[in-house]
């Protein structure tokens, strides 16, 4: 084959990718192999790195996470060079910035993701609440409903579930809390460490107060699926999760089918604003590809408007092109794309671009500190102070 | 009470019927020796008594209780294995001390017993060696020491002296006899050594192909073997057998014709046999006299074996293929190649019928 692409490990995603690739093959007459990669993103990353650091051309086009461009930049082709300066025009600004390392566009945005808040419409209605707009409101609502439900004999009812395990997911969750409280972005775009502030501490303290109260202790080891498990089992009032949970919660055999609402994540206090963690995937071309032009062309095609529209309609993948959020066909298929448009465009990116190679450490330090606060080992203030020190140490060799 | 009773004991290995209807009573404190050809089931019988093999059929009683189901541990037996079965990781000392129940015996008793056993067996200098670094005979003595140190009420010995030199063997034999006197325990002993069997046993059991041929005192077995098998088995060199025919018989005895030797008048009762019946006569080497050859009694000496204190003279029988042996004090006048005549001592001739059963003495001569 002329090219090898690694895209979408997961079922529907893989099918979509295959279709897209097939279309390109028809169009250009080239042949493309599709290899599947592990679902776990760390495993996928290390696999890529393994191959890339061997300067191997085994994979030409790879699907990379929004936090990876910084890490992989050295091995990736500058797409601006290959496809022209304007290739990323029309894509979400945040993502394009995220993917631009040292002035090189190393990956094309493909689809995006952002944290949203799921709630139980039925329960909120029953107990006379509206969907919360601040975390404080969420806390109270959750507590009231949880207690009331438990009193009614629904022992297992929990107020709020999220991703509390010490892993990348917690970085996103905690960043959402901090950012929504105006606590900054951990490390700002210019490389400045900003985490040691009151708001950040407050946000973490608030989250810590949930544990054992409105959230089960086990949430400290939850990832997306455990949280969804609880929520979809009808045992939680609120859940922070990615949009993927929507279609599953709405599936035919779901316990909470048609009882679920989705809103943007709450804001931190009256003067805070909602902040959704940015997720999503991009397509990049390996520098060691034997057919870089061809590969770039494939990337351009797959991330193009046509293809993104198809994906949005067929499988509700969030496009990264502004225009598609006004597209009638798209909105018809996925109504909440319209309502949550702001959420997607304003999603906060994790500080992977400024920290580059060190992002892993930064994220690790951050989720560890957050986890410490959640498990009650530290107060928010202590944690952010220590975190700042740790980050300074990490910054020793400059990001 | 440590009497041992075997009642119609049978043992089958797969398709091989190894022990066949063995009935035997061994009194408390008796010293019984099992003898028999290689593979006749001696070890198997010991292992059945020890409880190491399950009894296929029949009852085994120890002190009156049926113990078929009792594990070896609870039978109160000690055993010297034919294959030694030493604990490879323990020193000689530990091997011997292991069986002494530490809970009951205090350390001093254990030490005392082990040391005295070691002294008896001349193992004192080897106490700290592992079996691997011992010679065959030394291992065998350790195996013996292990069983002896425990002083159980029943002791089973499976060819315990086979790898020892003659003089050590004599000493060990005496030690075993002394131990038997001191402990008064029941002992069952397997050996291939005639001397051991004859000197140690209160009672000898001759086994053949899994069944008992004869039980009796050493004297009895040697003097009055009940079957040709026993006659041939006891005594070394072995008894000479020659074919013969019955000439006549009455209540006082019989006349028998052994081809090549001549007619003999014997005190055996052969009245139930018809004239001309085919018999076998048996004469021990020491009951054969050699003389100058005659025309109809002439045998060739094919081999003369010198044993230091005695000489075996082998003669070529004219019928059959087993050599005839004559035994006499050394030095001997006979040389290989010479011809001689054979003169049996008729008071010591055994007669066997075609089934190998010995003909009994007549009433008259028995009374004499």
């Amino acid at each position, binding site marked *: 084959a002329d090219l090898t692409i690694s895209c979408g490990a997961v079922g529907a995603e893989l099918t979509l990718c295959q279709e897209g690739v097939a279309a390109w093959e028809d169009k250009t007459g080239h042949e493309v192999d599709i290899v599947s990669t592990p679902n776990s993103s760390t495993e996928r990353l290390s696999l890529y790195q393994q191959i890339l650091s061997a300067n191997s051309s085994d994979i030409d086009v790879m699907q990379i996470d929004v936090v990876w461009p910084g890490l992989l930049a050295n091995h990736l082709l500058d797409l601006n060079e290959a496809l022209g300066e304007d290739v990323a025009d029309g894509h979400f600004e945040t993502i394009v910035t995220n993917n631009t390392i040292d002035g090189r566009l190393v990956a094309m945005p493909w689809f995006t993701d952002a944290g949203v808040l799921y709630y139980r419409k039925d329960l909120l209605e029953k107990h006379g609440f509206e969907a919360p707009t601040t975390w404080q409101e969420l806390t109270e609502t959750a507590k009231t409903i949880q207690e009331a439900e438990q009193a009614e004999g629904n022992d297992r009812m929990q107020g709020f579930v999220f991703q509390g395990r010490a892993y990348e997911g917690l970085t996103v969750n905690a960043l959402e809390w901090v950012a929504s409280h105006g606590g900054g972005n951990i490390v700002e775009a210019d490389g400045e460490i900003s985490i040691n502030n009151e708001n950040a501490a407050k946000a973490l303290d608030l989250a810590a107060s949930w544990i054992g109260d409105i959230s089960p202790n086990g949430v400290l*080891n939850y990832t997306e699926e455990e949280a969804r498990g609880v929520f979809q089992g009808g045992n939680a009032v609120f859940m922070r999760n990615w949009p993927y949970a929507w279609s599953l919660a709405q599936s035919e055999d779901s316990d909470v089918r048609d009882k679920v609402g989705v809103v943007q994540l709450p804001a931190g206090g009256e003067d805070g604003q909602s902040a959704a963690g940015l997720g999503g995937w991009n397509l990049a071309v390996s520098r060691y590809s034997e057919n870089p032009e061809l590969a770039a062309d494939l990337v351009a095609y797959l991330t193009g408007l046509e293809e993104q529209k198809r994906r949005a309609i067929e499988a509700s993948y969030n496009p990264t092109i502004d225009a598609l959020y006004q597209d009638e066909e798209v909105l018809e298929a996925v109504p909440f794309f319209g309502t949550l448009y702001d959420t997607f465009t304003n999603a906060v990116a994790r500080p992977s671009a400024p920290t580059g190679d060190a992002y*892993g450490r930064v994220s690790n330090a951050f989720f560890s500190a957050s986890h410490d606060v959640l498990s009650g080992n530290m107060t928010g203030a202590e944690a952010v102070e220590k975190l700042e020190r740790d980050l300074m140490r990490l910054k020793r060799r400059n990001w | 009470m440590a009497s041992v009773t075997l009642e119609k004991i049978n043992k089958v290995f797969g398709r091989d019927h190894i022990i066949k209807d063995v009935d035997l009573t061994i009194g408390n404190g008796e010293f019984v020796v099992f003898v028999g050809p290689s593979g006749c089931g001696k070890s198997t019988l010991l292992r059945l008594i020890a409880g190491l093999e399950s009894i296929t059929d029949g009852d085994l009683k120890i002190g009156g209780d049926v113990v078929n189901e009792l594990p070896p541990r609870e039978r109160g037996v000690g055993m010297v294995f034919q294959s030694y079965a030493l604990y490879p990781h323990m020193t000689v000392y530990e091997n011997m001390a292991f069986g002494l129940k530490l809970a009951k015996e205090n350390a001093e008793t254990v030490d005392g017993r082990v040391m005295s056993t070691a002294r008896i067996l001349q193992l004192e200098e080897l106490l700290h060696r592992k079996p691997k670094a011992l010679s065959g005979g030394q291992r065998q003595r350790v195996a013996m020491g292990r069983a002896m140190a425990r002083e159980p009420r029943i002791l089973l010995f499976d060819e315990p002296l086979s790898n020892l030199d003659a003089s050590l063997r004599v000493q060990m034999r005496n030690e075993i006899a002394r131990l038997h006197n001191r402990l008064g325990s029941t002992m069952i002993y397997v050996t291939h050594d005639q001397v051991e069997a004859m000197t140690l046993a209160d009672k000898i059991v001759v086994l053949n192909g899994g069944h008992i041929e004869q039980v009796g005192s050493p004297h009895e077995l040697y003097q009055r073997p009940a079957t040709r098998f026993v006659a041939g088995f006891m005594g070394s060199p072995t008894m000479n057998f020659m074919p013969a025919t019955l000439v006549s018989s009455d209540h006082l005895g019989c006349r028998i014709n052994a081809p090549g030797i001549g007619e003999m008048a014997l005190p055996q009762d052969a009245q139930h046999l018809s004239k001309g019946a085919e018999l076998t006569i048996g004469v021990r080497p020491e009951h054969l006299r050699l003389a100058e050859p005659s025309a109809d009694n002439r045998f060739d000496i094919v081999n003369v074996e010198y044993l230091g204190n005695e000489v075996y003279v082998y003669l070529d029988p004219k019928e059959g293929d087993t050599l005839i042996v004559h035994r006499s004090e050394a030095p001997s006048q006979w040389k290989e190649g010479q011809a001689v005549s054979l003169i049996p001592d008729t008071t010591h001739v055994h007669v066997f019928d075609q089934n190998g059963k010995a003909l009994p003495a007549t009433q008259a001569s028995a009374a004499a």
Partner: protein
Amino acid sequence: MSTSLKDSAPQGARLPIRQGRSTKVRRQRVKAAWLFLAPMLIALTLVAGWPLFRTFFLSLTDASLSDLDAANIIGFENYLVYENGLWFGVLADHVWWQSVWNTVYFSIVSVSLEVIFGVIVALILNAEFKGRTIVRAAVLIPWAIPTIVSAQMWAWMLNDQFGIINHLLMMAGIIENPIAWTASATYSMWAVIMVDVWKTIPFVALLVLAALQMLPKDCYEAAEVDGIHPVRVFFKVTLPLITPALMVAVIFRLLDALRVFDVIYVLTSNSTSTMSMSVYARQQLVEFQDVGYGSAASTLLFLIIALATIAYLYVGRNKIQLGGD
């Protein structure tokens, strides 16, 4: 008579002992031995030589996964360096020390448990009974399931909300409220240990079983006749005789335990309360891209294991002779 029949205890002048004099026979035997060793040594060198050397080497550089070629040799800075009034390097990282402690704790506890239960299971598998085949196969199942799957399975079963374990315990009335096994710092290490023990008992059991099967039968008969209680026989005969095999099982379990990764990673991820040295090394190598630093951590891990092994072999030198006889 008896005086002359003493055992031939060597007396008289001793010959100068010339042990190990290399005769041609011995030399030929040794040559054959090396010939037999060669394929194995070649295979191992081929497979392991370069990777191990490379790890050593990289630990002295500042290599980064994103660009290995740009590595500079920086000496022992990855291990320990004093800079700007602060100590840096693996040895100055409290997380590293935490992971060392976690690993050692984990290894000692889980290997001990595995050995005890492994031996018990092996003894049972060694007994003759109907259906032994089935039981043998069943016992091996935990080892047969890929770790990545079984660890996830346990994560699932240990889940506080919909895990079967809490469900059963609550049904049995042992606990009131569900326990967050893998989340709480108190339980998570024990959860990890439990899963590891569950998974590796078969390994120990199988090795011990093989050792049990190769024991000489006849000295058991001797012990039985000697009237020795089975428990005593086990401790005095069986155990000493299977010790070499057991020691090997323990060595390899120890090596694996000290390098434990999958179980901890899947069950509790990067949580520092259970982080092992391998998880730490992997975090540095893969997640943090710092090949130099990660290699240093790996090398330290190697050194710690090597020390532990040598100490272990030294302590047990009477039981397991390194090729001695």
